[in-house]
């Protein structure tokens, strides 16, 4: 099998295309995702978050880099591993943790939970927990933009496991034949749940090696480098907005935790996690900031601010009342209620 070719960052140049302001923002965003996810995990251990949860620890560069490339109005479609993508669009940590904790201040007041984070006002059109379901849905949103002559682009994030389900293939074909402004972003973290993706996939790069079947270019990038993610996404957005149709981008990454709360990830070969931690996206990006001459004090200030935001959000959620039982019967139908008979 062919080894995936991985694009890596070029030599660092000052005043490059990303620039200092955006670079600081990218660091802030990644650090915020890391802290919020770590806090979600801590709250599990305190039994303040029930049910399941799928963390993006180690995968922050994709969510941060992609969101930074978006314009307001662009739409995100996420999976059950969707905390990071939701937060990256600007949803508050309090709303997300509140939802995980089933509090009245939660994003959906506890009706969706960890796997269904949605904030339409931020362009987060949902987190979908049935593998593959949201790829066609993102196509539909892109079809609406095309039909109505709007400039927004739909972005659909999914894991490597999704590339083996039918909806992935239906959606890619559909997006290409209708030239839809949609970007499919595969977060290849090497494992579909508990099984190495390479054990169950016919090709080495589960998403990118399928691209040619749909007439799309093969794109595999280092998903742990936010600059690369940002640049690649920018190109895909430009292509979509020029009316040239969809892109499929495979981002190589690694999750530092198990598949879900229940998974200690014992199936990983010894040393693998440690090797990937050397390529921790936050470590890479902090190094980049230093390379560009950004002082430690400015980095520390960002970290302090983010820690405060996450602490304040945690306190607010702990103090918030449990969600009101009134919402049990609301919003089944568009009239706001649940009546199915007269």
């Amino acid at each position: 099998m062919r080894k995936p070719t991985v694009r890596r960052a070029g030599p660092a140049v000052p005043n490059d295309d990303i620039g200092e302001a955006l670079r600081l923002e990218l660091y802030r965003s990644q650090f915020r995702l890391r802290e919020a996810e770590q806090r979600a995990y801590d709250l599990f251990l305190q039994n303040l978050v029930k049910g399941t949860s799928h963390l993006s620890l180690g995968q922050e560069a994709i969510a941060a880099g992609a969101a930074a490339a978006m314009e307001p109005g662009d739409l995100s479609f996420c999976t059950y591993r969707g905390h990071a993508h939701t937060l990256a669009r600007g949803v508050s940590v309090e709303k997300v943790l509140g939802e995980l904790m089933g509090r009245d201040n939660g994003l959906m007041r506890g009706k969706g939970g960890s796997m269904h984070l949605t904030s339409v006002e931020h362009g987060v059109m949902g987190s979908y927990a049935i593998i593959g379901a949201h790829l066609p849905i993102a196509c539909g949103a892109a079809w609406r933009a095309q039909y109505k002559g709007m400039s927004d682009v739909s972005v659909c994030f999914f894991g490597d496991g999704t590339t083996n389900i039918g909806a992935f293939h239906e959606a890619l074909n559909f997006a290409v034949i209708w030239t839809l402004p949609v970007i499919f972003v595969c977060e290849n973290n090497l494992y579909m749940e508990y099984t190495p993706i390479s054990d169950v996939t016919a090709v080495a790069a589960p998403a990118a090696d399928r691209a040619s079947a749909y007439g799309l270019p093969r794109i595999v990038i280092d998903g742990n480098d936010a600059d690369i993610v940002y640049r690649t996404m920018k190109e895909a957005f430009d292509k979509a907005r020029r009316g040239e149709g969809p892109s499929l981008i495979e981002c190589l990454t690694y999750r530092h935790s198990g598949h879900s709360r229940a998974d200690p990830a014992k199936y990983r070969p010894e040393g693998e996690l440690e090797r990937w931690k050397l390529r921790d996206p936050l470590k890479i990006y902090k190094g980049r900031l230093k390379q560009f001459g950004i002082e430690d004090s400015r980095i520390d200030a960002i970290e302090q601010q983010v820690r405060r935001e996450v602490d304040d959000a945690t306190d607010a959620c702990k103090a918030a009342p449990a969600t009101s039982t009134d919402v049990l019967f609301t919003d089944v139908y568009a009239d706001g209620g649940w009546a199915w008979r007269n």
Partner: protein
Amino acid sequence: MAELTYRDAVARGIAQEMERDEDVVFLGEDVAKAGGVFKATVGLLEKFGPLRVRDTPISEQAILGAAMGAAMTGLKPIAEIMFADFIAVCYDYIANEFPKSRYMTNGQVKCPLVVRLGNGGGARFGAQHSQSVENWCMQFPGLKVVAPSSPVDVVGLLAAAVRDPDPVIFLEHKSLYALKGDVPDGEIVDTLGSAKILRSGTDCTLIALGMMVPRALAAAEQLAKDAGINCEVVDVRSLMPLDTQTLLGSVARTHRIFTIEENPRVLGWGAEIVSIIADEAFYDLDGPPVRITTPHIPLPATDILEDLAIPSVSRIVETVRRSMSS
């Protein structure tokens, strides 16, 4: 007033709504250039153009998923799944996505779309192209499910479905496409969640849906003529929401009910109706409720077998006559 076939009523209903609202778009397999495999959508491509009337690949998940994404973000899509049986390959959208998106997001996400299905048997298509799938759809809170039995109801209920802010499964009966009926000129908009009493009667109520409606009406005429049994016939029309008041009102008058269901026996919609009536109108009943259904078997292909399986006029007549005399 014009006489239209049920088939032509589909195209008229879609056209009425597409003319009214340019956010109404239509997609499905063979629906545009070919005008539909049942010829129910002939002329729509010519009238509304290829941006609004779109042929898709054989990708049922993509069809329903794309309809949902478009509905969430401002369009009012009508999606066709050619044979109703095929929803089994895109059931995720019907079971998990359309009906739950509004609830799970605490009202943030809307899903105003219509899925048209070619439902039901009688066309000798065999077990995978003949099923009555209404029961596959009505079990999900958040969905609406309607099934017209006449050309005028096709136009009116389709218009109501397109204008409804919730996802609606619209079950067209394949064996009714050639049925003719009068359809008034001008715009027709009906109401979801309303049953219709098609024949008043005093002795018992026949509760029917889809192709079972014309059979129930024919059986009622025969029972009146041959047995002196005066049946009321109610067309349920809408399974979700369910017009229980019309059903309970009829039971209060006739005191006997028969549900006439094309679906196989177990968990048919008639069981739900019987349970509601048993709960709420038990003392109105003069005898046990009776369900007339297809036996719990897959549908066979050949005509003599299929005709034995699906409730026929003579089976309805015999069952009612026997029950009413015991």
